[in-house]
């Protein structure tokens, strides 16, 4: 049973069609890489999954439950969207860490806020909760290799460290599917390695992931499936090794050859 089912997603901005008939599914524990040239709609697709954009057509189902159907307003109630967002996590290209919070506070903020909402009714055991949340935050930072950076503010961290904090922050709410939008594109080349290594580690632990990336070797080695997008449509999808090493479509071949050259 796939954990995520995306059907016929369509999105336009004004008259421009940015996504057209996007369909794919993802098994639990698998990693999906999305590749494609600039402007092909990769970011928009991730934003649709995270309810930052509203698709004009199509459905999104998580664990066989339809959480969005463009044709059914009952699935689009603003009051429910907040909860539905929690099925997905999103790691941004430019991190978007909260500058006024330390690495640990960035990771735990959402957990503390949720706990406060829950605890509004029952006050007891609040301090224990707080300690447990901070403990969980420290574990996530340790997993990212950042144990010694918990008390640092974002501006005191390198780009690679900031992005790893952002990954820990996205993991804190235990999303069903963790999405990455070009997680290493804003980094100096010497810093991409440490971030890719962390994502590789998540793949080995069977975290369900969708990774938009321009790192072809990484996509081939880490992803189970690869989707190649161009002009808002899926041109080719299949097992990672096959799509990247033996693409069936001419457009995919052209796209990949640009990466082979340099």
């Amino acid at each position: 049973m796939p954990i995520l089912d995306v059907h016929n997603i369509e999105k336009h901005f004004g008259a421009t069609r940015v996504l057209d008939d996007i369909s794919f599914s993802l098994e639990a524990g698998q990693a999906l890489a999305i590749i494609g040239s600039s402007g092909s709609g990769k970011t928009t697709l991730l934003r649709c999954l995270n309810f930052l954009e509203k698709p004009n057509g199509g459905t999104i189902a998580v664990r066989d439950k339809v959480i969005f159907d463009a044709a059914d307003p009952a699935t689009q109630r603003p009051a429910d969207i907040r909860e539905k967002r929690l099925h997905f996590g999103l790691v941004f290209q430019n991190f978007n860490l909260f500058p006024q919070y330390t690495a640990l506070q960035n990771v735990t903020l959402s957990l503390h806020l949720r706990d406060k909402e829950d605890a509004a009714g029952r006050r007891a055991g609040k301090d224990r909760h707080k300690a447990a949340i901070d403990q969980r935050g420290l574990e996530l930072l340790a997993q990212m290799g950042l144990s010694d950076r918990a008390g640092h503010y974002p501006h005191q961290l390198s780009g690679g460290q900031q992005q790893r904090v952002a990954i820990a922050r996205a993991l804190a709410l235990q999303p069903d599917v963790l999405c990455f939008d070009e997680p290493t594109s804003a980094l100096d080349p010497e810093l991409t390695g440490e971030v890719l290594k962390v994502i590789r580690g998540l793949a080995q632990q069977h975290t369900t992931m969708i990774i938009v990336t321009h790192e072809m070797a990484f996509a081939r080695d880490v992803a189970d499936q690869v989707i190649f997008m161009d002009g808002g449509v899926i041109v080719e999808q299949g097992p990672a090794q096959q799509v990247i090493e033996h693409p069936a479509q001419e457009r995919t071949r052209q796209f990949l050859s640009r990466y082979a050259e340099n």
Partner: protein
Amino acid sequence: MLSFFSSDVFRTVVGALNTGFLQTLRLFAVTLAGAIPLGLLISFGSMSRWAPLGFLCAEGQHPVLRAIWGFRPVSALCRLLVWVIRGTPLMLQLIIIFFIPGMILDSGSPWPGGESGRFLAAAIAFILNYACYFSEIYRGGIQSVPLGQQEAGLVLGMTRSQIFFKVTLLQMVKRIIPPMSNEIITLVKDTSIARIISLQEVIWAGYAFMKGSHGYSGLWWPLLFTGIYYLIFNGALTLFFGWVERRLDYFR
């Protein structure tokens, strides 16, 4: 020299100036207390996207039609207010608010007689004027916080108000402290404009000794002396804002 500072005339002048400066401080405090929240309201108003006819907008429509249907009345009204208030002198606004109602209303001036009426009129003019300046500073502050901060909050399942109070607000405050401290120091000095309707603030009190007050006349130094009050108070404000800025230095 020392005997001057213990003379009767000096003590009388300082007493009168203290009373005047107290009125200055009162106008300053009331203006801040009113303009800081009112400014926030006006800045939200001018950013309002409410367009009652917006549903008539359609793709491919003529731009003129789009502009008509997309008209945002709240935003337009707030921007008009800010334009008028910032485009005319505070002194003129004060004169209009204090004198004009009495001329056009059959019931006469709505302001209570004496100093309390002058203070009320001055407070209203100052609050309105400074709220408009503050609103533009707030708007700049809010819009300077990157959209990605909000989106990061949304993706983490936060509500709009959690995002505002836990994520955006402090970043906005940090950015508006320098322009706000400029405006607030200007406000301290601007309170002297209320003299135009004879509010008995510190400059009024100093000037009175030139014309004749408390049995003295032709004294010019009390007026110069008022400058010391402003200097000391603005010095304290500068120290305070410097302290606040340093408190927020821990993040960028």
